[in-house]
């Protein structure tokens, strides 16, 4: 791996810097020295096939894996030995692949469940302006939502907390094209508002519509980096990586 500081389109401060991250599920070693970084205001994707270690990287950043080694520096603070709930409180909003909507709570209750961590979060009203579909459904039980609505709710409730750094794990997975477009629109809006987003994706066409940079993940480490501007010329290479 060459040096990890990218020729970035942003000159912003480093938001997250991951160096030589190793992680294990029990005995099995799943991350083999992940290194990457994100500057404030960037949207960066981790691309890769199923099982490459993308979601594991996110879970590992959140401290949800039993064992991890290396260095995860967020806003200048080392987090490698922090417990999970402190990591969230440092200001990282994690939206997991399975979305994690609580089925015994309704939309409004799900929205208001996460603790407000920092100033500058959206109020419930502002969230509904951004996600009008949720306003209509606000008394519906978490289980009764469509996949798209669940995804919107999962993102929406993080925005109330006031964190500015989001981990979105495959937000478009299994969703209809029109919903994927809406999610893309939301990511653009968030980027305009200064959010920093790390995105896990398998769909690089979608990724190329929202991201500034891409990291390609294979076997638990970064094997390539592609600027979004170069994505057209790298299509063949990406096809090879992703096997599509």
């Amino acid at each position, binding site marked *: 791996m060459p040096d990890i500081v990218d020729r970035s389109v942003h000159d912003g401060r480093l938001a997250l810097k991951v160096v030589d991250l190793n992680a294990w599920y029990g005995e099995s070693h799943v991350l083999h020295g992940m290194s990457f970084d994100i500057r404030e205001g960037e949207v960066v994707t981790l691309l890769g096939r199923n099982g490459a270690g993308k979601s594991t990287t996110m879970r590992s950043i*959140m401290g*949800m894996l039993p064992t991890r080694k290396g260095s995860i520096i967020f806003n200048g603070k080392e987090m490698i030995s922090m417990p*999970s*709930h402190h*990591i*969230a*409180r440092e200001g990282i909003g*994690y939206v*997991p692949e399975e979305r*994690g909507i*609580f*089925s*015994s*709570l*309704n939309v*409004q*209750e799900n929205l*208001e*469940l*996460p*603790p407000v*961590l920092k100033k500058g979060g959206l109020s419930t009203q502002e969230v509904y302006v951004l996600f009008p579909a949720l306003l209509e459904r606000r*008394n*519906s*039980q978490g*289980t*009764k939502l469509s996949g798209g609505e669940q995804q919107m709710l999962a993102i929406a409730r993080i925005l109330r*907390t006031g964190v500015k750094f989001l981990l979105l794990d495959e937000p478009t997975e299994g969703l209809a094209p029109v919903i994927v477009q809406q999610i893309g629109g939301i990511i653009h809006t968030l980027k305009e508002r200064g959010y920093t987003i790390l995105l896990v994706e398998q769909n690089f066409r979608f990724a190329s519509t929202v991201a500034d940079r891409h990291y390609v993940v294979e076997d638990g480490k970064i094997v390539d980096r592609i600027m979004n501007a170069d994505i057209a010329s790298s299509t063949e290479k990406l096809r090879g990586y992703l096997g599509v």
Partner: protein
Amino acid sequence: MKRTDINTAGGSPAQGPGRFNSSTILYLVLLALALVAPAVLYPIFLVKVLCVALFALAFNLLIGYGGLLSFGHAMFFGGASYITGHAMLVWGWPTELGILVGVVFSTLLGVVAGLIAIRRQGIYFAMVTLALAQMVYFIFLQMPFTGGEDGIQNVPRRAVFGFIDIANDTTLYYVVLTIFVFGFLFIYRTIHSPFGQVLKAIRENEDRATSLGYHTTRFKLLAFVLSAGLAGLAGATKVVVFQIATLTDVTWQMSGEVVLMTLVGGLGTVFGPVVGAAIIITMQDYLATFGEWVLVIQGVTFVIMVSLFRRGVVGEIAALINRVR
């Protein structure tokens, strides 16, 4: 917006203000029935139901909303009854202080037991609570002040606050009903507070609650302590009513019975434990002539409930109403 779900934790759909009114009316009707009940039913039977129902409500707070199956709740129920009994009989304390000291004891015991048990989950949590309860049982069996096999007998029924004479069974009933309503409202508020929402979230997906930034252990411990304190309130009230604290109240069978009642009535429903307690106590009292066969009847009921009506009486009724809507 006012939170309005009343009946189930598990899945009631859209609720508007109308729903809130109808359940308020339901509760007022139930309260009215409770107020006239002693005219029809034997007060001491009703009082017993109320005490045990409060115990089941406390237990349900922990398992129904926190997802933690305690198999040692008798230590709080029985423990408080010993302490209250001793305070009133030997130290001559007034009723209200006697109950208070019982509650304080069970709350503190809840802190200690909770700190030990809360770090484990599922069956391990149940086993740790059972083991702790067995230790508490042994201590109460051996300590001289508990009277061993005899228990503490002839606990006086002193006038509450010095002027409410509870020697009269009907008055006693209203005093206990007041305590019960207080406990019920306390639990109701807890479940519907933000704390209760977080608790439900933890029950459903603890990892997710943690990654949202909640220190889930602290929430579970608080739920455990509240549950222990309320179970103690039930036990302390019971000793005032029956004037006796015995080993039965701290045995593991008592811990099992409260699980049974909660499951029969409806786990995680607000009113389920009350219905469950009423059913089980009615069986024990009215079928007492069958002797040991009551246990068999209880067992069969339990098996039928668990295999055919898993949501319990109240849970099934709530599901039925939702389907009709």
